Structure formats: C-alpha cells, structure tokens
C-alpha cells in the first residue's frame, strides 16, 4: 500500500461499511451514514462510480448476487488489498489524531473547534 494517495473520507467510510461482511448498494449507503454519524450521505450515482473505481483498483470485489422483489442485488466485499488500505488509512488518521489529542491534556478544551457538519456526496 506504499505510495497510495491519501484516501478521501467517503471512500474510507465506504470501505469501512464492508468490514463486517458483504453489503449491497442500499446497505452500503445506509451503513456509511450510520457509522459516520450522518456525515457521509452517498448519492446512488456517486456510490456506483466509487464501486466501479474501487473494484478496478482491487480494493473491493463482487461477492454474490440475489434477487429481491424481482430486483437484482449485487453484494460487495473487501479484498485483502482493500482491508490493508483501510488499515493503513486508519493508522495514518490515528497517528494524526494522537498528535493533537496528546496536547489536549496541556491545553484548554475550549480551544478545540466543534466537529464539522454532515457532508453530502452527490
């Protein structure tokens, strides 16, 4: 994973939705919103563009298909490369977070700004 550019937030959460097992498109949208506390709301067009790209990059792969109410559901799962990329990004962010949080003990908590509002990815 060396040399991979920094992962964008929607991609990070999209990959993170698949940590507990394969999900289909609707499942990924719902789960990404849940685990990001509403910060990441993926539009369907954006989601499928990301799924295509991540599949091409080998970070996710189609897992299985099923038909529900006459409609096709394709499930996606993390590949070993995807899991490794997600871990690398998580460690990078944790390291960056520690840099700030470790100083918090010696600084006033009021100097920290409020979290950013929810982002919509259309």
């Amino acid at each position, binding site marked *: 994973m060396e040399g991979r550019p920094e992962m*964008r937030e929607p991609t990070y959460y999209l990959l993170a939705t698949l940590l507990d097992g394969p999900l289909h498109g609707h499942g990924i949208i719902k789960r990404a919103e849940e685990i990001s506390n509403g910060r990441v709301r993926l*539009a*369907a067009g*954006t989601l499928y*563009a*990301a799924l295509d790209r991540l599949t*091409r990059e080998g970070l996710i792969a189609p897992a299985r298909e099923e038909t529900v109410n006459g409609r096709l559901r394709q499930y996606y799962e993390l590949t070993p490369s995807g899991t490794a990329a997600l871990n690398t990004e998580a460690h990078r962010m944790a390291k960056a977070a520690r840099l700030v949080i470790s100083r918090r003990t010696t600084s006033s908590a009021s100097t920290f700004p409020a979290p950013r509002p929810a982002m919509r990815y259309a």
Partner: protein
Amino acid sequence: MTAVLERRYRRLMRSYPQTWLDERGEELIGTLIEISEPGQQWPKLREASSLVLSGVRVRSGVDRLESPGRAWRDSIRPALVLVLALQIVMQVWLTVLSFADLDGAPVTWRLLVMPAVTCALAGGAALALLAARLRLGVALALLTPLPAVLPPFNYTWDTYFVFMVVVWWLPVIGLAVPLLRQQSAPGPWRWQLALPLLSLASLLLPLSGLYLVALVALVLLLAACLVWGIVIDPRPAIALGLLLLVTIPQLLVSVSALVLVVPAFTLVGGVLLTAGAVRAAHRNPA
C-alpha cells in the same frame, strides 16, 4: 407509484453509456428504488444530478483516469490537434484579409495555393493524430509553416520567416516530445475536442460580419469548456489552456497583440489550466 419513479430514473440513466447500463443498470435502478421513500414519484434533485453527472463522467472516460498525470498526458494530443486547427483558422483569416487588400486586382494563384497547401498540411497532420498515426502527424505538423517561407510560394528571404518557423516549431516540438514518449491514450478521447474546436470555429464568425454573435459565442464556449473542466472532465480545459499558452510566441509580432491578446491568452489559458489541474486532482467525487 414505483413504476412511475422507475421510469423517471431510467430516463436520467440514459446519461450512462449503453454498455455500462447493460452490465450495471438493473443493479443501480434496484438501489435507487430501495432508497426511495414510500409514495415518492419524482427523483430527488440530489439523486438526479448525481445520476446525470456520474453517467456523463463514465461516458467521458474520466472515471478511468488513474492519476492526475494521466489527465495531463491525455490532453497533449488534443492540444496539438487544436494548435493545427488554429493554424487553419488563421490561414482562412489571412486569405480573406489579403483578398480585401487586392482592391479589385485579379486573384493570383500564389494567394490561394500557399494557404491551401498550409491548410492541407495542418489538416493532414490533425487527421493523422486523430487516427493515432502520431509520427506522421508530428512530421506533417513540422512541415506546416514551410510553404509560407519556401519556393515556389516565396522567393525572398527575411529573418521574420525564421521567427515564423521557430515560433511554430517550438510549441509543436514541445507537445510532440511527451506525446511520442507515452503510450497511446486509451478510451474515448476524440470527443474532448468538441468544445475547444467549436471555440476555434467561432473565430470565423466575424468573417460574415457577425461580430457580436462571434464574441458571445466565443465567451459562452470558453465558459462551457471551463465548467466542463471543473465539473466533468479536466482534459478539454487543459488542452485548450495549453493551446492558448503555447500560441503566445506566435503573437509577439505587434504592440497591440502584446497589450491585449497576450494578456487575454495568458489569463484565459491560466484559468483553464488551473481548473483542469484542480479537477484532475479531485477527479473522483467519492
């Protein structure tokens, strides 16, 4: 209710290429229906815009750009084609202006044949590049300025001719070297020329006396190219920006060009390149 919403979503999904729809269309429509609310009849604006933009991005091939550098490399060949197209536009202008200078005198063969040969060389070079015959295209592009300075079209010699040839060869060589060193770009790249070529074609409108129409058309087409570069695909904006910047040496022939045209080319070219660079760096919406 669902059938109506599905029909409306399917209309929006026409922005995707048919091959993509054949492979992924049913899965996407299934997800869209699943995330819709009970009783919903119209696509939400956010979903609709996302569908249309994503479909156009798939058509453009921008979703398959693996790096910002790829966007720049893909823009070199269109930029060289645009340099050649601009040469043809300039030859048409020069020919019409020389007709006006005749003041009733008969038209000589030299007046017509020289620009015709120049246009044939530039057009041939552009067609060769479009057909991926890169070496032939570059060779013809290098020959393009020679009819203006060599017999049988010209028997006199002037240091200005050296300047003319050099300012033509510099951008051609500058674009040709990276073009010939890279592998041929995959994907649908020819459509990238549509907006920039229309912008160049609008430069011919003043010949029919439509000055205001020409100005409005040029401004609108440049704006369209910029917006396209920001929202969809950076490559047409980069190609047009490269054209404007590499053409500047050819403009260093008069004070009026230095005062008005060079700053305009620099500004517009710089804005287009910046927009393209930003889009290339953030080419994936998620």
